[in-house]
C-alpha cells in the first residue's frame, strides 16, 4: 500500500527494501549520484556587451544533502540553477552529474520555479501526472505514485481542483509534487517560496524539511532569505552579486529537523549577514 512511507536516511548507499512490488521498483531511482560544479562562469550579451553573471562557481553536492544558496537579487543564483537543470547550455566550466557532463534537461534533475507553472487547464492530479508523460509506466503505477506524492505534500482532497481554485502555497506544493514524482536524484528549487506570503512561507519551509527527510533526495535551494537558508540547509553557500561569485561556504552542522529558535541558527544568520556587509571573496575550488 503506502510505499514511500519508509523514512530514508540522507546518506548514500541506503539499503534497498526488497518488499516493493516490482513495478514500483522500476519507477524508483538509485539515489547515489553526486553533482559537481567546477569553475562555472557565464555572461549574457546585452547590446553586444558581455555582462558577467557568474564567475568561477564551484560546488559539490553529495547525495542526500540539502544545500542552500543565498544571495541578493542579480547574483545569478537562478542562472546557476538553470545551468544545472540543463535549461541553458551556454557556459564555461564543467557541470558533472553522476560523473557525466550535463547536456540538457533530464528527469534525474528536477526543478521547481518561483512561479508554480502549473498548467491552468489541468487539475492538480493531472498536472502532477504530466511529469510522467514521456515515460512508459503503466497507468496503475502512475496513479499510485501521484496519489503518494499528493499525500506527501499534504494536498489530499484537492486532486480534482484546478490551479486557480487553490491558494498560491498549495499550488507551489503541487509543483513540488510534480517535480518529485519522477523520483529525481536531485531537486533544484529556485526561490520556491518567494511568491507566497510570510506566514505560509514559514509553514512551507517546515513542509519542505519534512519532505526532504522523507524522500532523502538531494536538494539545492536558492533563496534571498538568510534565515530560510540556515534553517533548511546542511551547507549554505553565500553568493555575492555582479558578477555572482561564492564568497563563503558554511557547514551548518545541526541535525534535522531543526528548531527555528535555536541560538546557533541565529548566530549563523548574523555571520552570513555580516558577509553581505563585508564580502570576502574566496575562491572555493575542489
Amino acid at each position, binding site marked *: 500500500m503506502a510505499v514511500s512511507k519508509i523514512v530514508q536516511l540522507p546518506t548514500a548507499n541506503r539499503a534497498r527494501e526488497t518488499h516493493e512490488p516490482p513495478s514500483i521498483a522500476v519507477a524508483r531511482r538509485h539515489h547515489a549520484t553526486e553533482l559537481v560544479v567546477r569553475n562555472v562562469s557565464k555572461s549574457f550579451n546585452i547590446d553586444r556587451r558581455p555582462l558577467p553573471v557568474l564567475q568561477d562557481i564551484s560546488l559539490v553536492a553529495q547525495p542526500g544533502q540539502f544545500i542552500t544558496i543565498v544571495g541578493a537579487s542579480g547574483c545569478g543564483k537562478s542562472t546557476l540553477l538553470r545551468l544545472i*537543470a540543463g*535549461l541553458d547550455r551556454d557556459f564555461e566550466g564543467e557541470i558533472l552529474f553522476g560523473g557525466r557532463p550535463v547536456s540538457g*534537461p*533530464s*528527469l534525474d534533475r*528536477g*526543478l521547481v*520555479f518561483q*512561479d508554480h*507553472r502549473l*498548467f*491552468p*487547464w*489541468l487539475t492538480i492530479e493531472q498536472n502532477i501526472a*504530466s*511529469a510522467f*508523460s*514521456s515515460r512508459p509506466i503503466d497507468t496503475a503505477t502512475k496513479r499510485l505514485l501521484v496519489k503518494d506524492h499528493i499525500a506527501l505534500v499534504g494536498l489530499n482532497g484537492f486532486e480534482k481542483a*484546478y490551479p*486557480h*481554485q487553490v491558494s498560491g502555497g498549495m499550488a507551489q506544493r503541487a509543483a513540488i509534487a510534480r517535480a518529485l514524482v*519522477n523520483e529525481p536524484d536531485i531537486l533544484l528549487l529556485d526561490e520556491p517560496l518567494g511568491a507566497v506570503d510570510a506566514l505560509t512561507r514559514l509553514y512551507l519551509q517546515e513542509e519542505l524539511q519534512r519532505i526532504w527527510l522523507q524522500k532523502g533526495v538531494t536538494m539545492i535551494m536558492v533563496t534571498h532569505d538568510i534565515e530560510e537558508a540556515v534553517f533548511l540547509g546542511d551547507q549554505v553557500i553565500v553568493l555575492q552579486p555582479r558578477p555572482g561569485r561564492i564568497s563563503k561556504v558554511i557547514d551548518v552542522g545541526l541535525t534535522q529537523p531543526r528548531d527555528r529558535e535555536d541560538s546557533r541558527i541565529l548566530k549563523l544568520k548574523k555571520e552570513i549577514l555580516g558577509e553581505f556587509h563585508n564580502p570576502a571573496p574566496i575562491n572555493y575550488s575542489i
Partner: protein
Amino acid sequence: MNKHKARFPHLPDLRGTVPLALIFFVWALKGHEASGPLFQDASIGAVFDTGLDLVKSGALWENYRASLLRVVLGFAIGGSIGTAIGLLLGVSFWMDRLFGPLLTALRQIPIFGLVPLLGLWFGMGESAKLALVALAAFFPMALNTYESVRNLPTAYREVAALYRFKLLYRLRFVLVPYALPGVLTGLKLALSFAWISVIGAELFLSAAPGLGNLLEAGREQFRIDMIVLGILLVGGTGWAMNAAVTALERHLLRWRPAFS
C-alpha cells in the same frame, strides 16, 4: 449603487425591455399609417401575416436554408484554412518572419471591397459568394490562431523541456489548451464576419435564394414587412450563432476562473 435592486430586490431587472416595448407599441399604433401608396402595409400584423405566408409556401425556409448553407460552407473552408495558416505561422519562426507582416497587411482590405474583384474572377454567381464568405472567415481565424500560438509563454515551454514532453503531448496538452481561448474568440469573430458577408454577397452579387434575396426583394417592392422579417431573421441567427459559440466556450474552458 443599483437603486432598482435595492428597492425591488425580488423582481428581475426588466428595465431593458422598456425601450423595446415602447418601439413595439409605437409600431403597433402607427404601422397602419405607412406613408404613400408605394409602401405596403408596414404594421406588425402585416409582418406577421407575411411571415406566415412565406413559411406556408416554403419560401422562407428555402431562402433561410440557402443562407445557412453558404455560411456553413464558407466558414468551414475559410476557417479551416485560416486555422492551419495561423498555426503554421505561429509555430514556425521562419514562416512567421516571412509571411506574418503580409497577413496583418492583407487583413486591412475591407471584405466588401473585394466584391468587384471576386466578381471579375469568379463571375457574379455562387462561387464568388462562397469565396467572399471564406475570405471573411479566413482572416480572423488565421490572425487569432497565429496570435494565440506564438504567445505561448516561455514558462510553459521550459516546463515542457524539463519534463521532456514529446511533440504530440506538447501539442495536445500545452499548445492547444493554451491557444484555445484565443482560437474560440477568433471563431466567434469569423462566424460573425462570415454571416455578414453572406448577406452582403446575396445583396451585391447575383440573385439567388437567400435572406439577402428576401431583403432585396422587399426593397424593390417597397415591402417593409419583408424587409423587417429579413432583418429579424438575420439578426436573430447572428445572435444564436454567437450564443452557441459562447456556450461551447464555457464548456471547453471550464478550467478558467469565472469573471464577474
